[in-house]
């Protein structure tokens, strides 16, 4: 057996892939919170985009992007799990990371929706 090098950038890539859903959740929360804070501080919450209020519009757009991202991660991971099912040449650890990536993306969809829903029912800056 020989020593197998494994560098930090390669590991960081695996790690980011595993937690991609939660990174999207964090980005989504940061965007909607910052957008709302800025709109209230500088008084442009009354502005509209395509007939919608600016804040709900940005929240909806950010939510759509984040959800699409999560669905992409989930779909990619599920495809990978199907592809590697029952194969002896695929390490258990690889399937474990893919499975974790899928479940985290699935959970993140729930968390993103949970954060976005208030924007539909509460008026901004009140």
């Amino acid at each position, binding site marked *: 057996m020989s*020593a197998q*090098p*494994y*560098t930090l950038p390669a590991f960081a890539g695996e790690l980011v892939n595993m937690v991609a859903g939660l990174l999207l959740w964090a980005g989504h929360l940061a965007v909607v919170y910052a957008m709302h804070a800025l709109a209230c501080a500088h008084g442009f919450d009354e502005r509209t985009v395509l007939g919608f209020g600016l804040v709900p519009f940005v929240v909806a757009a950010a939510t759509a992007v984040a959800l699409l991202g999560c669905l992409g991660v989930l779909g990619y991971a599920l495809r990978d799990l199907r592809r590697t099912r029952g194969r002896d040449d695929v390490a258990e650890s690889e399937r474990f990371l893919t499975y*974790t990536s899928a479940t985290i993306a699935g959970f993140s969809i729930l968390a993103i929706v949970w*954060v976005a829903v208030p924007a539909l029912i509460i008026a901004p800056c009140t």
Partner: protein
Amino acid sequence: MNQELRGDLPRTTRAPATADDAAPPNALPRPPDELARLEAAWRPPRGWRFLSVINNNYVGLLYIGTALLFFVLAGILALVMRTQLAVPDNDLVDQGLYNQLFTMHGTMMMFLFAVPVVEAMAVYLIPNMLGARDLPFPRLSAYAYWAYAVGGLMFFASLFFGLAPDGGWFMYTPLTSERYSPGINADFWLLGIGFIEISAIAGAVEIIVGILRTRAPGMSLDKLPVYVWAMLVFGFMVIFAFPAVILATALLELERAFGWPFFSPAGGGDPLLWQHLFWFFGHPEVYVIFLPAAGMVSMILPSMAQTPLAGYRLIVLALVATGFLSFGLWVHHMFATGIPQLSLGFFSGASMAVAVPSGIQVFAWIATIAGGRLRLHVPALFILGFLFVFTLGGLTGVMVAMVPFDWQAHDTYFVVAHLHYVLIGGMVFPLFAAFYYWAPTASRKPLSETLGRWVFALLFIGFNLAFFPMHITGLLGMPRRVYTYHGYLGWDWLNLASTVGAYVIAAGVLLFLIDVARRFRASGGGGNSNPWNAGTLEWAPADTYGIRSVPRVRDRDPLWDRPALVEEAPAGRWYLPGTITGMRETIVTSPIDAHPQHVIILPFPSFKPFVGAVLTAALFLLLTLKLVIPALICGVLALVAILMWLWETDLGPTHPPADIGGGLVVPIYSNGMESHSWWAMIVLLLASASVFASLAASYYFLWTVSPGVWPAHAGHRLPGWAWPAASALLLAIGAGLIGFASKSLRHGPRHGPWPVRLAILAGLLALVAAAGIELYGHWRTGLRPQESSYAAVVYMLVALQGFFVVVTLVMGLYTLARSLAGLVSHERRVTFDNTRLMWYYTAGQGLIALVIAHLSPRLLG
């Protein structure tokens, strides 16, 4: 171990080992002096030299013992408070002392007990669970421990001089500003806690790198013990959360000492900035405490029920998700501050989402109990107590996550009840379970089963008697932090019950200490018994060097998978059964699949971490007392001690690659990205980036609340473009020079060492000049940091960059000195690479700071 015995063991998560894939690599008998050489390398220092000990088996126990000391001291403060509140209109303590008592109680429990004790348990347990001989930076562990112990005792001693902080454990401004808290009481908190948090970050770096790089061969991420997963998440949470409070304490100290108005509305500051920074740290802190405890529960329950943990993969998901979500909840501590309702809605939603991963863990534990036969030993009793108490705390957590309810219950005893149910239920009960569970690995005798049952009964009954009534006193309107109350309010009998409960808890803790005093006798290493028939590696026979030979792991419960390990490992049949170089060593493995990569030589015991820690603590104490010159002297001496300890590391490729067992030949030294040191540096830089990100967020926060003090509105002149351009150019030149030095070093003997040395020297000058130009550029416009929050935050950007330039300067000169001593070469370049990483980071941070300071005010107005 034969198949018959296997039949009596819990079923494992994979098929039984076959002769082919699990045969030990080393034959018997082993060379006659192999064990003696290993023991000699790991022999602990005796007598007064024990202060130089660095082995995790000793440092971990010292750490746990010290954390327990602070637990008892903070508990005594709680008893004084409860005695004061036992009856109405009591005058046992006055209001001023009561303020100090509740501030010190909360601060000590959170900063001197809860976080340190989970780090301490990790220092002790993790190497043993991973099959490592020690953590990868044992001297850093010793430094972090001594800094915490000495700094913590100094902090506690402030109580006896009337100097203890009295602004509450979260030290809200403006109460803690110079105007409302004159004197140095608040400074003790700011400098003391800031210092102790730095020690916590040092521990987190150690834990993360230890987990990712020093696992037993074969222990891939899917076979990692759940507790280790929890500590990995913990480590990253500390790295990203704690810098926010370190920055906050620095900002408040600068406001108090020099009048930089970050939090004062008169100068365009905002008290809410403190709350944002504090709770961005403070809420993850709750999970920093809870997740390790949850990890302990996930280790103890399978042993108690004699069945593998149910839902391993979902529990890992829950740990990671909780760690992330905890960073999106900080505003739920600020529901009553006037933040717009929609923002409250975002954070209320996130707060409820975190109940999902917590619920996953609780159901997995219940399923584990249901899947096996729970043996009701003392650890199991504490876990059942934990499930009951923590679940109640979680339910009241869902209540206060709802904004309308929170507005009613805010700052009442209901919140006191909730937080104690969560923290004591979620952390102290599992911790006591852990003490009873893992004591046989550290002590020649286990703790008493009989006394343990009494300890559990007293703690469980006392806890519920003390804290359940507080829900009602809170709903009846009793506010937190009042030192007395009138009898006609109807709170008297509830308070009396709480006080009785507090004394029952104290009796339980006292009984536990008696048990420890009677029976705990440190064995100096892993124990040699496995009374619970547990399956993980820390239960394999071990000594001060950890496990004698490191097995190849095929399962999450290696001792259940291959019972013969308890004979094979101490006989030396697995990897690295002795010492190759005659020094302390451990195996470094790849981060995902744990393939052996190389062996690192660990440092030997030294007084330098102890001396460095004491001097660092003295630096912070003397600064608090405003004794600047003696403080600076201590700081310089501390730096000298640390550099002297480092000088003895980075030994280079002193030994050819060696066989660690079964023909597996690995190097004894490694450079670049494979080096564990490189990984530690990256983790440290993540913490540094987190400090900077917190400052950048503070800049934009202050702009949103006070745009009137920004240049466009205040009419202030900005430095011309030439100033930031010159600074940026010098930063780029500095980074280019260290890059050139790196290439030059790679070419090695061809060009000699002088191109490297000259490039380092010139690059350092460029870095210092860049910082100086940026500072002077602002100064010459007439801007002064006391003028406004804008000026203060701009100078803070300059100051933070200056701090990193000084760090890089010290590292660069140290590297230069090692080069002049012939200790840096193309083969021996770990020191150089660490300096290079810090250098690139400093240059990158400097460029971003220039964009913030010069471009933002022009774009934002």
